[in-house]
C-alpha cells in the first residue's frame, strides 16, 4: 500500500472500496492501531497515530472486523458486558441496553450468540461497536455473507449512525451499498485511485447523456439532435428499420438538453417512447478505475 492520503469529516459516512488485496483491511488496521505503518502519518479521532496515543485512540474509536468475533458460548449481554468492561465504561447496564435497542436486539439479549442467525450476530457485533459511543467507527465488510434482508437491516443501522453524528469508515465490496450509504467514497487498489462524492466521480469519468427511444427510426436524426442546446454528440444505439429505435445523445447539461431534444423530436413528428438521463453507477466508476489499474480493457 502506498500513496494513500485522505481526510474524513466528522459525521461523514466514508466508503473505502477496492478489490481483494487492495489494502482496505490493512488501512483499517493501521488506523485502528492494530498494526503500525511502515511510513506515513495519520490523525485518528483528533489524535496523531503513534504508539503513545494508541490506547487513547482505541478508547475513542471502535472497529467491527469482517467476522463478528462473538463468544458463541456467552449470551449477547455477556458479550457486550465483557467489552464494556474492557473499555472501562461506567453505567454498563444502561449502555448495553441502549446499544441493544439501537440495533433492535433487546428481545434477544439473553440468547447465546451461537444460537443467533448470521444477520443477528452481525447486529450484535454492531451493538458492541456502539458501546463506547465512538467518535469514529470502522466497519469492515459489515454485510459480508448476509442475505438481502439482513443486509438491508444493517444498512438501516448504518444510516442511523450517520443521523447520530458518528463518523463511519465503511469498507465494502458492495458498490450498491456504498452508493446508497456513503457521502464520499475512495477507490483503492494498493494505492488510492480516486476519492469523491459518487455523483462527482461519475461526472468526472463519464460524459452525461440522454437515452432516447422512439417508436420508429428517425428519418433524419442528425437534423433533430445537432445544434440543440447542450447537445454535444449523438449516436444510434440499437433498433431495426421498422421497430423502436434508440439514440444516445451526449450532453453537457441534461436539464437544459432534455426539453430542447423533446421539442425537436415532436417537431420532427417522432413518436417518443422515453427520454431518460443515462446514469452510470458507482460500479461503472469502480470498474473503470480498477480494471484500468489491472491493465484490462473494457
Amino acid at each position, binding site marked *: 500500500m502506498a500513496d494513500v492520503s485522505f481526510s474524513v469529516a466528522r459525521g461523514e459516512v466514508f466508503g473505502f472500496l477496492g478489490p481483494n488485496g487492495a489494502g482496505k483491511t490493512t488501512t483499517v488496521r493501521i488506523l485502528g492501531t*492494530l498494526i503500525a505503518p511502515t511510513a506515513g502519518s495519520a490523525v485518528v479521532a483528533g489524535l496523531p497515530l503513534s504508539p503513545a496515543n494508541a490506547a487513547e485512540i*482505541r478508547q475513542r474509536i471502535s472497529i467491527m472486523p469482517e467476522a463478528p468475533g462473538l*463468544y458463541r458460548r456467552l449470551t449477547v449481554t455477556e458479550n457486550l458486558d465483557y467489552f464494556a*468492561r*474492557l473499555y472501562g465504561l461506567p453505567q454498563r447496564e444502561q449502555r448495553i441496553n441502549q446499544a441493544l435497542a439501537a440495533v433492535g436486539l433487546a428481545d434477544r439479549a439473553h440468547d447465546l450468540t451461537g444460537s443467533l442467525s448470521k444477520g443477528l450476530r452481525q447486529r450484535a457485533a454492531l451493538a458492541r461497536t456502539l458501546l463506547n459511543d465512538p467518535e469514529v467507527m470502522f466497519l469492515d465488510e459489515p454485510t459480508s455473507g448476509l442475505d438481502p434482508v439482513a443486509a438491508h437491516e444493517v444498512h438501516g443501522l448504518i444510516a442511523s449512525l450517520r443521523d447520530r453524528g458518528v463518523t463511519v469508515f465503511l469498507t465494502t465490496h458492495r458498490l450498491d451499498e456504498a452508493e446508497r450509504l456513503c457521502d464520499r467514497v475512495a477507490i483503492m487498489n494498493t494505492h488510492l485511485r480516486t476519492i469523491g462524492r459518487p455523483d462527482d466521480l461519475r461526472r468526472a469519468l463519464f460524459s452525461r447523456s440522454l437515452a432516447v427511444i422512439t417508436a420508429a427510426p428517425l428519418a433524419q436524426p442528425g437534423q433533430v439532435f445537432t445544434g440543440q442546446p447542450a447537445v454535444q454528440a449523438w449516436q444510434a444505439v440499437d433498433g431495426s428499420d421498422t421497430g423502436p429505435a434508440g439514440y444516445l445523445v451526449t450532453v453537457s447539461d441534461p436539464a437544459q438538453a432534455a426539453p430542447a431534444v423533446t421539442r425537436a423530436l415532436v417537431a420532427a413528428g417522432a413518436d417518443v417512447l422515453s427520454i431518460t438521463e443515462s446514469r452510470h453507477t458507482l460500479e461503472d466508476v469502480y470498474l473503470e478505475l480498477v480494471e484500468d489499474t489491472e491493465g484490462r480493457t473494457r
Partner: protein
Amino acid sequence: MSMSATRIGAVIRKELAEFSRNRFILTTTAIFPIVFLVSPTAQILSIKASELSTVLQKRVETGLFLPLLIPVFVPAILSAYAVVGEREQGTLEPVLTTPVTGLHFLLGKAAAIFVPAIGISYLMFGIFVAITQFAAAPAVATAVLHAPQLPAALVFVPLLAAWAIWVGLAISARATDTRVAQQLSILGSLPPVAVTALMSFDVIPPTFTVAVALAGGLLVIDGLACFVVAQAFDRERLITGTKPTTEQHYRVRGAS
C-alpha cells in the same frame, strides 16, 4: 476499582464463564485430575502394612509425586488454548481493538486458569490424603501424613501451575494451531516437574532448605516468565501472524 482491575476482572469473568460452558475444557480439566488421583490412591491402598519401612517410604513418595502433575497438565492445556483458541474463533481481533493492554489481558487469562487449577489440585490432594487416612493400613496412612514431600508438594502446586501457565500463554500467542500449542505447552511445562520429581524420589534430598531454595528459584522464574510473555505479546503479530516490520509497533504492554 481501578481501570486495570476492571479489565483484568473482565477477562477472568469471561474466561470462567466460557470454561464452564465448554465441554472440551471441562473434559480436559476433569480427566487429568481423575487419572492422577485414582492411580496414586490405588497404589497407596495396595501397600501392605507388613512391607519394610524403606519400601513403604519409596512407594509413598511415588504416590505423592503423581498428583503434582495436575497443576502442570491442567494449566498447560488451558493456557495453550487461551490465545490461539481466540484467534481461531475470530474473537481475538475485536478484543485487541479495545484499550486493554497485553499485560492486563494476559494476567486475566492467567488468573482465570490459575485459580481453578490450584483449586482442583488442592482438592485432589485433599481427597487423596483423606482416602489414604480412612482406607489405607494405619502404618501407610501415617507414612503419607508425615512424608516431607506432602508439604513440599503443597508449596510447589502454585509455582508449577504458574510456570505451566506462562509457558502455555507464550506458546499460544505464537501458535497457529490449538493442538500443536497444547502439545508444545505440555512439553514446555515439564522441566520444573523433573526437578520436583528428583526431590520426590530423594535424588535431591527433600530438606526444608532445598525445598525453599527450589521454590524461591521457581518463583523468580515465574515472575520473569510473566514479564517476558507480556513483552512478547504483540498486537501486530497476533493479528497478521507476522513479525512487525517497523520499530513503531504496537506492543500491548504498559499504556500503549
